């Protein structure tokens, strides 16, 4: 069955067909989410929220559009929300930690455990937009026009994100991990 047929069945209330959609796109969606968010738990949450969002808004889907682009757009927005929430949490946490230590006149420096759990993955050195762009370009073969739809920006801006990501990774490859 094509995506369109599956989606129309979902619109008629067939949840099993929605399961087929989830199974079909599970790999692509989780791949993108893990590469943006860098950890399994957040990626799982983001993917589930994205699929639920898709199911609840199927009646608004324009069948002239590509379903995969629409799904990626929703997922990208969920991932960016998660990144922002996470950043807010770590900013707050670090601020409170510094306040606590200065209040107690301690020279104790923040230990690595208080820092966000950075993965060894070099993708952590790219911004979420650059990570999304490089994944869509390298794995999905997206052009800058298609990427602009997912990232909700112009194709020029998408082109800049891919360019910067490619350049950063190349530098890392040439000079080692500590260059950036």
């Amino acid at each position, binding site marked *: 069955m094509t995506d369109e047929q599956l989606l129309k069945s979902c*619109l*008629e*209330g067939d*949840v099993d067909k929605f*399961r087929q959609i*989830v*199974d079909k796109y*599970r*790999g*692509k*969606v*989780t*791949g993108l*989410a*893990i*590469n943006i968010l860098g950890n*399994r738990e957040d*990626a*799982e949450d983001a*993917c*589930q929220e994205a*699929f*639920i969002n898709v*199911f*609840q808004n199927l*009646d608004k889907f324009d069948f002239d559009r590509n379903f995969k682009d629409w799904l990626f757009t929703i997922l990208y927005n969920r991932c960016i929300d998660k990144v922002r929430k996470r950043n807010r949490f770590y900013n707050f946490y670090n601020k409170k930690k510094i306040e606590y230590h200065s209040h107690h006149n301690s020279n104790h420096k923040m230990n690595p455990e208080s820092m966000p759990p950075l993965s060894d*993955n*070099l*993708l952590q050195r790219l911004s979420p937009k650059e990570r999304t762009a*490089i*994944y869509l*370009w*390298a*794995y999905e073969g997206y052009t*800058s026009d298609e990427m602009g739809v997912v990232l909700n*920006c*112009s*194709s*020029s*801006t998408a*082109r*800049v994100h891919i*360019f910067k*990501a*490619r*350049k950063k*990774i*190349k530098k890392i*490859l040439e000079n080692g991990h500590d260059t950036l």
Partner: protein
Amino acid sequence: MIRCRLINFLFRVFPFRAFQGFLIKNHFEKCPDCQNSLVRAEDARLFLVKEEKAREMINLWPGISEKLCEGSGEKLRTPFFLKWRWVLSAAGLAVFIFTGVWYFNRPDSTEMAFQQSLDQAFKINYIKVEEKPAGAYVYEPQDSEMIIVWAEILP
């Protein structure tokens, strides 16, 4: 090379996305020297979590079905008009046909007025032919104000 350096310089100095996009499209994507400073897709994939690995790591459906079934029952349900759309369509069509039939078969107002005037003006209580009771047949041709009365001696 001088051209490449100049364009790299312009790229860094003017951080406008449209301008940078223009430089990328018209120079960096075409210049072989500049392409060497960018990672290739196959090398970039080494830094990414692969789709197959991601697929193994996460099983999405149990969580999705649970979330769909728990708090959002009304969201899960198909909208009323979609579920009953065939019934609603058939009912709408039936109403349309009924209205059409009624509209085209309703008595004309002038016809009704004529009928009313006839009811008031023409009345036969009893007919006799040759002093014997007779059967009467009243015939009103359409689109005419004529009334034909046919009387016949009953056997």
